[in-house]
């Protein structure tokens, strides 16, 4: 296996495993926000704004993995 094929496999692994953690985290965050809105509908504006910012923070981890995968595929420093 040369560097190219290893990079392709590594990119797939990076994205697939990197998506698991943020997916679980976002699911928990949305469930908690739903719970909070159901208990206190008048606070829905504040809760959803905070939720969006928090989701963006969590999602960044998945995006980092995506960027790593793209670097491996398109700008690999080790593939000559």
């Amino acid at each position, binding site marked *: 296996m040369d560097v190219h094929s290893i990079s392709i496999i590594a990119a797939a692994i990076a994205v697939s495993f990197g998506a698991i953690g943020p997916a679980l985290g976002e699911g928990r965050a949305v469930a908690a926000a739903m719970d909070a809105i159901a208990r206190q509908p008048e606070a829905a504006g504040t809760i959803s704004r905070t939720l969006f910012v928090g989701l963006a923070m969590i999602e960044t981890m998945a995006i980092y993995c995506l960027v790593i995968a793209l670097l491996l595929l*398109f700008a690999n420093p080790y593939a000559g």
Partner: protein
Amino acid sequence: MQASPLASEILFHLGPVPISRPVVTTWAIMLVLGGGSWLLTRRLAVHPDRRQAVLEVVVTAISGQIRDVIGREPRSLLSLLGTLFLFLVMANLSGVLPGVKAPTAQIETPAALAVIVFVSVHWYGVRAQGLGGYLASFARPKLIMLPLNLLSEVTRTFSLMVRLFGNVMSGEFVIGLVLALAGLFVPIPLMALEILLGLVQAYIFTILATVFIGAAIGSVEKG
């Protein structure tokens, strides 16, 4: 094989300076936003007509959001953050037009915007607290937090850039792949999702910039 999303296409040279496609798109958006604002605000009246009423709704909504986050009068921040939001909405949605690539899908535009946010955070911080007070705020709550606070200044700017770039670029990438694999009308639901994501990303970028500036001027807890 798609073209690399990390390289940008050079359209023409202006003297020795190469001008790439996102720069030209950004110029067009600047022209539309600047010219549109000039045209729409030429005759402002106390009793607004329909055009001015729509403008007032937009400006009031943005300043209301900023006031909710920082908890004080948003007057001095409105020009920066409002422009940032409107520009990002235009830039993210411009990818829907045929033949146009969203400038935020190349890494240069999010990088430039993140640098603008980085610099203005310190500018507003120094202006609100004075140089000494602002520098001292990095050593809170304890002096031992100083390296982590300094590090977080850099990493949060970086993640601001990567978040916007990654979201917009991956959306366009997926649409391109589905178009190549499945054919003409299949990616339309994905494009609708891309419109929603573009708006959400513009909102998130602006809100995060607001939170960072609010932390620097001392009205929001540092996060």
